[in-house]
């Protein structure tokens, strides 16, 4: 067996979302001291806001439930030091070590670490910047995240006063959009939208759901089955077209969506009681600052760029990427990626 003496090693993990927590746990389990830095006042990141998306009490494997276990574990882990409401203000590299200044309430303290794992996550796309869908203006327009947060909190769908009869999802809001320079697919929106569509169907048996899409990203075997299930449901309609605008109809308390029926090559209007925008994953606004501090490269969209063939290593030795700061990922993909980081860090040390 290769002998490891990891007791004296220190690793800094930046960001305590699902990726940061997973990486930190795996590394700490090897006896390495982990400094886990989180800028907000709680650990868990975005996943805290996601609801369980079981349909008919059958798990659809969204992974939102995996966070709690990990949080419980990490809070009592003897090798993990958690710094809440903290941020890094300066980093200097000497030989193989990094000297990191951690800022907390205007006080700074310095730690010496052997490696840094960047797990700063993502930023949900701001649906208001796609003004034509009326988010923030029309009361019947929500984002997928709104729905998740609402369901997580209430355990049911009470977004509107009346029972919705027609609902629609618009996919790729903020993703695959050259006008916004977001020329990438966010990977998660098709999956959560279809899960949410099934949940709406379960909650309101009479509801009809339309899904406006470009291409359904049916990756993964699990998802393909969910997609088939949706296609078999006669009350879910897939419409291959992205609407051009949404307009409020106050008299009927509904929102009118204008889109092109591509097969017939004509414009069509449809009214909905509920419109859900499937917002995508954007690079975190922090990325630029961290790029400056650490000197790691970002790609054209603002995600951190890994070295080719090494999906967690960066151009700076000793700095690793974990989770969605490297590019859009689902919860399970983030966990897988974060575990890979732990392996790579161990190899590096």
């Amino acid at each position, binding site marked *: 067996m290769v002998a490891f003496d990891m007791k004296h090693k220190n690793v800094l993990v930046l960001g305590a979302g699902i990726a940061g927590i997973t990486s930190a746990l795996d590394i700490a389990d090897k006896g390495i001291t982990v400094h886990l830095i989180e800028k907000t006042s709680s650990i868990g990141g975005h996943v805290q806001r996601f609801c369980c998306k079981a349909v008919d009490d059958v798990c659809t494997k969204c992974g939102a439930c995996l966070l709690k276990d990990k949080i419980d574990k990490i809070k009592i882990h003897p090798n993990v030091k958690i710094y809440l409401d903290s941020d890094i203000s300066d980093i200097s590299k000497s030989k193989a070590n990094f000297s990191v200044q951690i800022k907390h309430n205007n006080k700074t303290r310095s730690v010496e670490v052997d490696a840094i794992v960047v797990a700063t996550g993502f930023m949900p796309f701001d649906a208001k910047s796609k003004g034509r869908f009326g988010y923030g203006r029309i009361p019947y327009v929500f984002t997928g995240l709104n729905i998740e947060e609402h369901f997580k909190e209430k355990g049911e769908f009470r977004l509107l006063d009346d029972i919705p009869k027609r609902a629609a999802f618009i996919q790729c809001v903020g993703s695959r959009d050259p006008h916004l320079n977001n020329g990438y*697919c966010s990977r998660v929106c098709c999956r959560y939208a279809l899960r949410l569509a099934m949940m709406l169907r379960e909650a309101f048996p009479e509801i009809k759901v339309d899904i406006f899409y470009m291409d359904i990203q*049916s990756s993964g075997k699990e998802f393909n089955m969910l997609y088939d299930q949706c296609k078999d449901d006669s009350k879910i309609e897939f419409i*291959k077209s992205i609407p051009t605008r949404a307009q409020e109809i106050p008299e009927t308390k509904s929102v009118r969506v204008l889109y092109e029926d591509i*097969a017939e090559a004509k414009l069509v209007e449809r009214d909905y009681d509920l419109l859900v925008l499937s917002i995508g994953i954007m690079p975190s606004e922090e990325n630029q600052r961290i790029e400056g501090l650490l000197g790691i490269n970002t790609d054209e969209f603002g995600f951190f760029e890994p070295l080719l063939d090494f999906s967690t290593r960066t151009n700076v030795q000793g700095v690793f990427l974990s989770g969605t700061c490297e590019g859009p990922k689902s919860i*399970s993909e983030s966990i*897988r990626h974060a575990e890979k980081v732990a392996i790579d860090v161990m190899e590096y040390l």
Partner: protein
Amino acid sequence: MSKRIRANSNILIIGGGIAGISSAIYLGEQGHKVTLVEREEKLGGRLNNLFSVYGMDICTKDFVSQQISKLNKSSNITVLTSTELVETKGYVGNFNSKLKIKNSKLREIKHGAVIIATGIDVSTPKMRCNSQGIINHTRLEDYIADSKIRRLSKVVFLCDFDKEDSQIIALSTLKNALLLREKLRCEVFVISRNIKVAGRKFEKLYTAAREKGVVFIKSIDSLMKVSPCNDLISVELSSTGSAVEGIDVRSLQLICDWLIIGESILPSQGTEELSEILGVERDKQGFFQNNNVHFMPNLSNRKGIFFAGACHIDAGLNDILDDSLTAAYAAHNLVAKSTIEIDEKTAEVDEEKCALCLTCIRSCPHKAVDIDFSREASKKTAKIIEEACFGCGICTSLCPSRAIQLREYEDEKILKLIG
């Protein structure tokens, strides 16, 4: 204090494709004695049939031979080709397996963990029309590798033909469409329901293909007719409903040299037999099924048995490599110390109450209950194999004589809690 049992740190890997090879290399480096079993005469698996893979700069064959030479250099790894697994007994930490080597007698090995990396098989969907020019992706890769492609003027890729294409085929379509367009300057059409771009830089590949002049036709309700047309193939589409500029898409006829159809992906031949030998579960489509897809991405329903690569996930090569590493890492973590920690919360049989009705043995999803053969014939009872128990409580709730209790969750304790 938790209990520990002795465990063998050797590891058996089934499947000598890229997933098995990568897992073996990692485990060899970590000091484990690894036995890599491959059914065919040659290592490398499906990658041997591919010319190039998106996301990798070097030719696939070179990459495979690099990895194989790494494998051969390691003194910790024994490679057995033309070999199949015929029997496995025992539990995590102490498995006993019999291997059948072609033209040789059975060999027995002891090992602490298993990694299953059996990959996939592919099958080409049947078309009503038969023609030399209708080829699948594997053939296309062959032609590209041999550089024996005659002048082509037009090729059509047909995607999502009878069901949605897998990630591997979807990516291969984008990559090869661009390759044919750039290298041979022929006209390339891709007919598809959903362009799959969910992955790092895949959208960029799609954009690049369009910029180079690959025409994508997103058919919605395509009524398609494929027929031979002299030496060529005619593909007729009606009401494709695609907005391609300058082409009347409502009735479109493409006469092409090649019609390339994507293979569908099947569980590797022998998956069923292997699942029975090892007692691991498969999903509805027959692929191996993780115990919990998210929490333990590589673990099967039995402790000590892991899945790696395409036999359980549908993904591109980079993800397959990552997955093999995480599987190897999980196996390494489990048996590296030559002992295994036993969970405190395992089930326990009350020997006085047990009537050996076999309910628990049949219902345990983790194959962690067996008959206690150490007892006399008339006094045999069920026995929980502690190291293999997940503590799920299924046997506890099903036992008709309440002879099984889950430690820490005994009936009395629960009753007290709920008053």
